C-alpha cells in the first residue's frame, strides 16, 4: 500500500534534520567522545528531584490547570522579575509548556496565517524553520556572520522585511554559535520592530548561561517591547532539567489565551511532576541566590575558556562565545566542508561534533562543539581534534 494520499505533502517536503544522519553514525561508535550533545552534563540537583519523588509518594498524580500550576506560575513571575526585570502577571500572561519546544510551536501556530513570513536568524536551533512551515508560514533566514560576532544587525533585518513579514525570532543566547545580543544590539532593533509592526518570539532558554561578567538582556524588558514580544524560557539548560520537559511562554494576555486554546486541546497540561520539580528549582533559587545555576555556570565557563584557547592554539579561528554551552570554531584552514570534517573526525579520531551547516547555510565552514562534558573527556577530545587538524592542515 502507498500512503502518499494520506500524508500531508507540506510536512513530507520538510527535509530531515541534518543532525539525524550524524546521530545514526555516532550512535554506532560506542567509544566515541561526544561533543555533539545539546544538554547539560549535570544531573538535576537532588533537592529538585527529591521534590518530585515526594510528590509521587504523596500521590500528586492528577492533571494540573491548563496554564500550569498556580504556584509554579507565581514562581516564574517572581523569577523573571528578579533576574531579567520582566513583569508578567501569573494569572493571564504565563503559560507553562512541555519544554520551550512546545512554546515555540504554540507561538507560531497561534500567530501565523498561510504565507506569513517569519524571520529566523541563522545559524540557529534546528526547529524554528520546520515549526514555521508546520504552522503554514514561510521561514526566511537572516544569515549572521562571524565578523559581526553572529549578532543580528538592523541592516540585515531591514533587508529581508516584506509586507508579508509578521514575526521575528530572536534566538539569543544562540545555539549553535554561543553568540549573545547585548543591550545596545537589541535596542538597535526596537525601532524596526515597531515601525514594521512585527511580533518578536524571543527564545531565551540559555538566558542563565552568559559568561565573563555579561548579563542576559530580555528583549521584552526594553521600553515599549513587552507588548510586541513573546518571551520563551524553561528549565532544561539553566537547571539541568532537559528530560523533565518544562518550559513557559509569556506575553500579552490576548496572545497567551489563544495559545492556551491550542495547548488545552492538544496537550492538556505539562506533566505535574515536572511542574513540581520546576517550582522547587525556582523556590530554592529565590532563597539561596540561585546557587545551583551559578555553580553550573561557573563550571561551564572554565570549560568554555579551555575550549576557546585550545581551538585557537590549533590555529583555528574561534569566535569568543559569551553564551550557551557551545563553541563554534571555523575549520577553514583544513579546506574541508563541515560535513566532511565531522564525519572524518568521527571515523578517524572518534570524536563527535555537529557540522555547522546543520543549523543553516551560514553555518558552513564551522563545527559546533558542546563543552558540557567532563573535563577529562574534553581534554582527550581536544587532543584528538588537534591531531586531526594538523594532519589536515592545507599546505
Amino acid at each position: 500500500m502507498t500512503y502518499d494520499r494520506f500524508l500531508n505533502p507540506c510536512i513530507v517536503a520538510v527535509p530531515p534534520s541534518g543532525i539525524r544522519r550524524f546521530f545514526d553514525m555516532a550512535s554506532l561508535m560506542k567509544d566515541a567522545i561526544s561533543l555533539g550533545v545539546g544538554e547539560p552534563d549535570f544531573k538535576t540537583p537532588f533537592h529538585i528531584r527529591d521534590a518530585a519523588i515526594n510528590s509521587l509518594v504523596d500521590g500528586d498524580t492528577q492533571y494540573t490547570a491548563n496554564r500550569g500550576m498556580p504556584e509554579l506560575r507565581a514562581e516564574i513571575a517572581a523569577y523573571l522579575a528578579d533576574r531579567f526585570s520582566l513583569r508578567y502577571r501569573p494569572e493571564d500572561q504565563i503559560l507553562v509548556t512541555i519544554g520551550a519546544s512546545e512554546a515555540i510551536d504554540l507561538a507560531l501556530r497561534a500567530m501565523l496565517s498561510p504565507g506569513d513570513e517569519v524571520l529566523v536568524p541563522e545559524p540557529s536551533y534546528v526547529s524554528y524553520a520546520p515549526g514555521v512551515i508546520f504552522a503554514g508560514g514561510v521561514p526566511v533566514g537572516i544569515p549572521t556572520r562571524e565578523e559581526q560576532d553572529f549578532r543580528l544587525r538592523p541592516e540585515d533585518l531591514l533587508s529581508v522585511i516584506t509586507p508579508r513579514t509578521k514575526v521575528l525570532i530572536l534566538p539569543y543566547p544562540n545555539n549553535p554559535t554561543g553568540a549573545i545580543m547585548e543591550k545596545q544590539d537589541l535596542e538597535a532593533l526596537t525601532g524596526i520592530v515597531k515601525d514594521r509592526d512585527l511580533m518578536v518570539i524571543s527564545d531565551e532558554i540559555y538566558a542563565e548561561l552568559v559568561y565573563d561578567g555579561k548579563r542576559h538582556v530580555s528583549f521584552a524588558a526594553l521600553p515599549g517591547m513587552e507588548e510586541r514580544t513573546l518571551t520563551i524560557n524553561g528549565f532544561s539548560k539553566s537547571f539541568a532539567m532537559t528530560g523533565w520537559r518544562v518550559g513557559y511562554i509569556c506575553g500579552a494576555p490576548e496572545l497567551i489565551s489563544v495559545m492556551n486554546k491550542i495547548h488545552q486541546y492538544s496537550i492538556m497540561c505539562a506533566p505535574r511532576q515536572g511542574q513540581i520539580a520546576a517550582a522547587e528549582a525556582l523556590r530554592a533559587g529565590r532563597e539561596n541566590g540561585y546557587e545551583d545555576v551559578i555553580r553550573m555556570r561557573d563550571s561551564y565557563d572554565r570549560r568554555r575558556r579551555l575550549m576557546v584557547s585550545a581551538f585557537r592554539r590549533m590555529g583555528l579561528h574561534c569566535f569568543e562565545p559569551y553564551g550557551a554551552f557551545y563553541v563554534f570554531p571555523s575549520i577553514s584552514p583544513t579546506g574541508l566542508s563541515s560535513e566532511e570534517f565531522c564525519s572524518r573526525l568521527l571515523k578517524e579520531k572518534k570524536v563527535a561534533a555537529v557540522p555547522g551547516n546543520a543549523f543553516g547555510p551560514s553555518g558552513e565552514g564551522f563545527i559546533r562543539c558542546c563543552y558540557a562534558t567532563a573535563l577529562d573527556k574534553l581534554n582527550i577530545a581536544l587532543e584528538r581534534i588537534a591531531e586531526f587538524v594538523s594532519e589536515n592542515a592545507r599546505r
Partner: protein
Amino acid sequence: MTNLETALLDLLKEDCRLSLEKLADMTGAPMTEVAGVIDRLEKSRVILRYSPVINWDLTDRERVEAMIEVRVTPQRDMGFDAVARRIYRFDEVKSVYLMSGAYDLLVLVEARTLKELASFVSSKLSTLETVTGTATSFVLKRYKEEGVIFDGEETDRRLVISP
C-alpha cells in the same frame, strides 16, 4: 581567598594533574600568575598534598578500615589537642576529628588484617591514660568517597547527538 584561588582549588580538587597551561586557560589568568598562586597555596599549607582517590577493593592489597569513636578526658590548658596529637602519631591512624555529640574524637584507622586492627585498639589506643572508652565500627563497603562514587559508574545517559 581571591576568586582565582577559589577557582584553582576547585579545579585541582577535581583533577590535580591539570597542566598550568590548562589551568591558565580555564581561569583566564596568565600562567605565571597561576603558578605563583599555587606556590603560595602550597607554602601556606592550604594545599597539603596531591593524591589520587583509590578503590583498594579492586586491588589485591589486604586492608581493613574502622571508624573508632573515642571518649577522652580533656587535659588542662591543652583541651583535646594533646590527646588528639598523641593518637594521630600512630601509623595506623588515617584521620582524626574532634566531634560534637556523644563522643569526642573520631579516629579512622587502617590495618592489613582484622587482627592487627583489633590489637591496635586494645593495646595501643585503649591503654592511653586519657582515653576513657572506645567503640569500633568496621567499614564493610564503600559507596562514595571524596565525592567519587565507588559502586558502579555514573553513566552518561545523554543522546550522543542532540540539537
